[in-house]
């Protein structure tokens, strides 16, 4: 894969966030601040299961762990990667083998050196059933084994082509962890200790309360893409867990925390106009908010009903009403910043209630006495299962319900707690359910949503089974060459729109806010991981 010169990396990385550009101008000051300048407090929107980034399902854990580990490569733009712990790499033509050359000056926080063996142990641990890895397990894909070529060279082999592997390797979830620490702490790894090679080290973890990190004093292997390679500027980072939106924002305003994630859209305008706070708005890569329609259950098994739903929902109205126009109406299963996004999809299904009515009329769904359509003895009633949180779920659902009613579809809301919800949708008792996926590789997103291997209780709760689509997804995974990969991704998007698989509702930005005294925050292009290696707090 192509390597990117440092300046280019900075420019691209800075595209999302202006903050990095500022630190670019100040490279000479780097040394002066090297003593460390304060602790950044971060208001996190909820707790999580474990700090073990290999085992977790939480994006929040990735956000914390990115500071404790170093990824093998950094993603700088869709489909483009820069060196991290790996200085260079080669990919076999069939995308089944990746060879990484590692930096030779890197030590884990426990003092042991980073070697090819550590990479092997980290990856083997992901597929070890005892680890019960989740997010990392999806990222590593059809992993076969790792081979230690020499002390600093490792070759990762896959059972089938995995063109998306560099994307996975750039995520915190495949960050390299210390084999010695894993060995020593066993089941407690990730609960009381977590050892990587990153610019910050875990100091303490109080569940549901806070995670404290302190600066790694020995860090000299910052990725060449960043403006300095030595120790981080901050003395430490405290991730404080503040689940209630209003409290988190209040804490930002009183400067109890200097940085917050998940800014509610209702606070968007106020923060945007604020004198002493900065709002970061980065389009979030992934699927956006969408609606899955179960094809295994009547009446969403009827293509006409699904097509009518696609036309019946006023996506612009939804983005405006529920999301304060901060979100944008969605077009396809991929957000516009994703590699291979097809802008043609935005013209395909405009909001058109009359069109929806026509489709239903033609399919034999006649308007009944109460305004709800019937066909034979069947009422056009859709069971919509949704979880109790977040509240925006319920607002969106109420909006969709009202839209559907306009065309004679009765949407029944079933708000359920997590166990009951999962029970229902895994068993396919739903007609409708929300989906929202973050991720930066289109192949991975499409596989989660549409591959038949994920139907029948998995993540494809459309229960959409199409051999053509399966083949397309497999081809995407096997094609490393960019132009033809793009073609395949475009075809896949058109296909699922023609088959009326899902309704694509809204594309969200990732919203963060911080105190104006905080500078040099880097966020990945997908919008998921703010990184404080370059960050300073100016008094």
């Amino acid at each position: 894969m192509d390597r990117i010169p440092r300046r280019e990396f900075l420019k691209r990385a800075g595209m999302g966030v202006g903050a990095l550009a500022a630190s670019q101008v100040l490279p000479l000051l780097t040394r002066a601040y090297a003593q460390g300048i304060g602790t950044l407090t971060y208001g996190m929107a909820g707790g999580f299961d474990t700090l073990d980034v290999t085992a977790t399902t939480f994006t929040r854990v990735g956000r914390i762990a990115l500071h404790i580990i170093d990824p093998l490569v950094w993603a700088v733009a869709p489909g483009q990667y820069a060196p991290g712990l790996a200085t260079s790499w080669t990919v076999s033509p069939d995308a089944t083998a990746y060879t990484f050359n590692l930096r030779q000056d890197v030590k884990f926080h426990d003092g042991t050196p980073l070697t090819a063996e550590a990479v092997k142990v980290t990856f083997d641990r992901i597929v070890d059933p005892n680890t019960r890895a989740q997010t990392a397990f999806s990222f590593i894909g059809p992993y076969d084994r790792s081979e230690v070529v020499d002390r600093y060279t490792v070759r990762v082999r896959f059972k089938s082509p995995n063109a998306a592997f560099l994307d996975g390797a750039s995520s915190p979830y495949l960050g390299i962890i210390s084999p010695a620490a894993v060995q020593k702490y066993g089941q407690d790894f990730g609960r009381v200790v977590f050892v990587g090679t990153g610019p910050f080290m875990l100091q303490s973890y109080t569940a549901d309360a806070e995670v404290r990190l302190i600066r790694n004093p020995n860090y000299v292997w910052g990725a060449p893409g960043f403006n300095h390679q030595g120790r981080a500027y901050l003395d430490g980072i405290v991730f404080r867990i503040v689940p209630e939106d209003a409290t988190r924002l209040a804490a930002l305003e009183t400067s109890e925390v200097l940085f917050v994630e998940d800014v509610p859209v209702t606070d968007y305008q106020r923060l945007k106009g604020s004198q002493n706070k900065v709002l970061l708005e980065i389009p979030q890569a992934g699927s956006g908010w969408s609606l899955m329609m179960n094809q295994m259950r009547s009446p969403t098994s009827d293509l006409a009903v699904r097509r009518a739903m696609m036309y019946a929902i006023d996506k612009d109205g939804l983005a405006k009403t529920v999301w304060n126009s901060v979100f944008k109406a969605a077009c396809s299963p991929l957000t516009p910043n994703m590699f291979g996004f097809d802008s043609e999809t935005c013209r395909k299904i405009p909001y058109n209630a009359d069109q929806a009515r026509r489709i239903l009329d033609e399919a034999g769904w006649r308007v009944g006495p109460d305004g709800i359509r019937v066909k034979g003895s069947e009422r056009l009633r859709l069971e919509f299962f949704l979880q109790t949180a977040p509240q925006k779920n319920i607002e969106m659902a109420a909006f969709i319900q009202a839209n559907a009613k306009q065309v004679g579809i009765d949407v029944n809301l079933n708000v359920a707690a997590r166990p009951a919800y999962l029970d229902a949708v895994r068993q396919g008792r739903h007609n409708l359910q929300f989906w929202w996926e973050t991720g930066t590789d289109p192949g991975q997103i499409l596989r989660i949503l549409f591959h038949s291997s994920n139907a029948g209780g998995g993540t494809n709760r459309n229960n959409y089974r199409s051999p053509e689509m399966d083949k397309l997804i497999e081809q995407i995974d096997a094609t490393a060459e960019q132009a033809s990969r793009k073609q395949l991704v475009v075809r896949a998007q058109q296909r699922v729109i023609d088959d009326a698989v899902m309704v694509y509702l809204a594309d969200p930005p990732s919203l963060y806010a911080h105190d104006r005294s905080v500078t040099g925050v880097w966020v990945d292009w997908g919008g998921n991981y703010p990184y404080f290696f370059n960050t300073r707090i100016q008094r």
Partner: protein
Amino acid sequence: MLQFVVRRLLLAIPTMVAASILVFLMLHLVPGDPAIIFFGDQPVTPERLELVRHQMGLDRPLVIQYLDFVRGIPRGDLGRSIHNRTPVFEELRTRVASSATLALAALIVAGALGLSLGLLSALGRGTWIDAGAMLVALAGVSMPIFWLAAMLIFVFSLRLGWFPATGFGGWNRLVLPAVALGFVSAATLARLVRSSVLEVLLQPFVTTARSKGLREAVVIRRHVLKNAFIAIVTVLGLQFGTLLSGAVITETVFARPGVGKLLVDAISNKDFPIVQGAVLFIALIYTVINLVVDLSYAYLDPRIRFD
């Protein structure tokens, strides 16, 4: 007396056993497979699902699952969460400490506020003081706690800057959550104090004391207060458990870790060991508190006997 204490403590053992069995069974009635919940919205193959089910020990008979839990208790081993495999004791330790601190602080707020409001209105019965005190108490019960908590943050943290908005750490962080949580209990308490004081004021022994020429302040201190304490102690004893583990909302709003939040999460994950461990812990604390409450009855009102 000692015999009573010992007997009560021994009797607590079956209560706790019953509690743990009941909780275990109730959790099994909750629909949902813990392994499926574990994978949530992640892709999973049937084989991996089966494997995790096995690792969680869900493929064994219920009785064995329960006995496994019980077997560890004498060694102080409450097992590990089936979800993230953290030792249950570890999960409980910091949260119990945090919740108990908050509950105690809230009790102090509730006791002080409830007693003074209740006394004020009982003694000033029929006047505007009575009406005012009862209105305050009424406001307390009719305010949902998340609203009260949000208002406290808005006024005392955002506008006045007196206290931090998040409530984990130093003592100054305890004030707002304790007031929010205590205020609601204070309202109930004030009403009960008022009615019990009114009742006591009409008892023959108060009349006797008055007719003997005792000063009103002495009457109140010696007789009325002592009897009002019965109501207070009853309610506080009843509410400590609620304050300890039912403070989910207060704790969420003020960003404090707590047993309630742990339990809510564990219930929705069907994480049996965590729920059982937590309930056992709460049952133990509750037993001790209520033993103290019952003992104080005998002290406060000699007519109450323990037989």
